[in-house]
């Protein structure tokens, strides 16, 4: 087990270095001198310019700058936003909201996806199955902002069941509609995965044996079929948590949820390049960290994975 954890951690290092390097490189490619931009139309004092250049390490070669930046990241220094607030402070304020939203979305998509997928799989080829497949196709092809607007229009404006924007503090009842919208990203995938898995499990010998022993369907379906079909589904749902955290950008922006995604969304809309880059870096790191934790948990839960290279 220790060997497995060590191997996974070692494998994460090149990916971590590579991704931060790529992002840094893309930003470095940005045309124009950032310091000159600070002064606007005025001509800066050369001595001041020189001092700032040293202070921000801009006189160092690119690779040195990158490692200084990387060191900052490891100390929790992600830079400052356009308004002067430290990115880490904004994160501390907004991240809990995003996590709450992502967990709600995960629960919704898991419960809904597994239930519909199970029924579809058990009634393969029947009307329910066919309609579930069509609906899942439609969900796959609808962009998230279209789903968000349609939900806002129907449930917020026409029916008046939910608020179109989330009030301060992001109480759970306000987050239900955004969570449903966010859940729709991978809802369809979960239905299909569960359905395929249920169909496969249904044909296995132990299910036939259970029927042969005269067990009732009420026992066979939840205990024998569902439980054994859930392994790939749980795997998918766990890796999906990272996608939900990152994918919340558009949803949070539209529903005005005060989370990490909205901060990024607003920075993008206002064209605040450096803030966008800091937040994207943070989100990529979160995404990598979540995936690493999920991988490690699997090793704990399923011994087969530990020994497969």
């Amino acid at each position, binding site marked *: 087990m220790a060997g497995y954890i060590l191997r996974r951690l070692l494998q994460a290092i090149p*990916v971590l270095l590579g991704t931060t390097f790529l*992002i840094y490189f893309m930003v470095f490619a*940005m045309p124009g001198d950032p310091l000159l931009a600070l002064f606007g139309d005025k001509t800066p004092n050369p001595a001041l310019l020189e001092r700032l250049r040293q202070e921000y390490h801009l006189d160092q070669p690119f690779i040195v700058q990158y490692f200084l930046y990387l060191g900052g990241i490891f100390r929790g220094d992600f830079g400052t936003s356009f308004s002067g607030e430290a990115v880490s402070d904004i994160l501390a304020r907004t991240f809990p909201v995003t996590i709450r939203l992502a967990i709600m979305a995960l629960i919704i998509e898991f419960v809904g996806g597994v239930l519909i997928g199970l029924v579809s799989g058990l009634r393969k080829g029947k009307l329910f199955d066919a309609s579930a497949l069509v609906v899942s196709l439609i969900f796959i092809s609808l962009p998230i902002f279209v789903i968000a607007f349609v939900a806002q229009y129907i449930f917020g*404006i026409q029916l008046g069941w939910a608020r179109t924007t989330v009030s301060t503090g992001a109480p759970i009842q306000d987050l239900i509609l955004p969570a449903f919208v966010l859940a729709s990203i991978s809802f369809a995938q979960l239905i299909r995965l569960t359905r395929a898995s249920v169909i496969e499990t249904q044909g296995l010998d132990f299910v036939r044996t259970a029927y042969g022993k005269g067990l009732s369907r009420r026992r066979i379906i939840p205990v024998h079929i569902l439980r054994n079909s859930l392994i790939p589904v749980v795997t998918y749902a766990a890796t999906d948590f990272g996608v939900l955290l*990152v994918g919340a950008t558009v949803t949070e922006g539209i529903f005005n949820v005060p989370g990490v995604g909205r901060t990024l969304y607003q920075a993008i809309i206002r*064209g605040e*390049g450096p803030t966008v880059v800091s937040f994207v870096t943070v989100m*990529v790191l979160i995404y990598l960290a979540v995936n690493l934790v999920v991988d490690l948990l699997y090793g704990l839960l399923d011994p087969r994975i530990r020994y497969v290279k």
Partner: protein
Amino acid sequence: MSNNSFTPTPKHFVAPLEETPLVAIDAVNVGERPSNLWIDAWRDMRRRPMFWISAVIILLVIVVALFPTLFTSVPPNDNCQLSNSNGGPTSDHLLGFTKQGCDVFSRLVHGTSTSLSVGIIVTILTTVLGILFGAFAGFYGGWLDSILSRAGDIFFSIPYILAAVVIMSVFSAYRNVFIISLAIGIFAWPATARVLRAEILRVKNSDYVMAARATGVTNFRILVRHVLPNSIAPVIVVTTISLGAAIVAEATLSFLGVGLPNSTMSWGNDISAAQVDLRTAPQTLIYPSLALSITVLAFIMMGEVIRDALDPKARAQR
């Protein structure tokens, strides 16, 4: 090899000998066209309504993109009158007007080529990069595989919308169809590469590859002539589906305001401009969204049909 002597498979002996003459069993219809994966797939596909529906939609989208003036005589930007702002449908302008008083339908028709060209350029880019990386990694293996696969992991681990947001922020002065396609494609190729690599690992130990090697064919020629053609099927599926995904990505970036400039007509831009008027003029938001969704749906449906046709296992699950 043990296959030198002819060992009949049990299938040959199903029919009772005294009833069927041996000649009839061994008779093979030489005139029949040899069936292969592609012919089988085509036979399967053309029986499915989903294939025809998506094919018709895709054809229609292509024709609209190439010849927009066939479908609308109203110029998209010239005749805009602010007195028509957010106006409802009239007999000449069936889908109503945008906030700037332009014809919604005309903008839809003229915006088609933007979405489609981004989709096609991204797909070409991801397919070329994916085939290069996937084929060399899978076929040559060893250290080359390690390097190429790790490089793919790095690009794969950055969600490509976020990466595209950064690239588009960096190149904010040069936003056009090519830059946005590059921004999406440069981080989307590892999906193709992974699928191809996995398939090549499966194919490269086949008997026919060994036979080619035994006759002295060079490695590169084996890869191009034997391995690639036999492992390209899953790539086609990924490609068709990713074309739809690329169109969504362009719309999302334009929606976020880091996509194409407002002067370029695109569905994403129209949706983005219409979002503030959801309450008062839903038609300006709904029609571009509908056009976008139907186009993407067609490509994804096509991908699914091809996947089902090429994969016997998926066919059995249907």
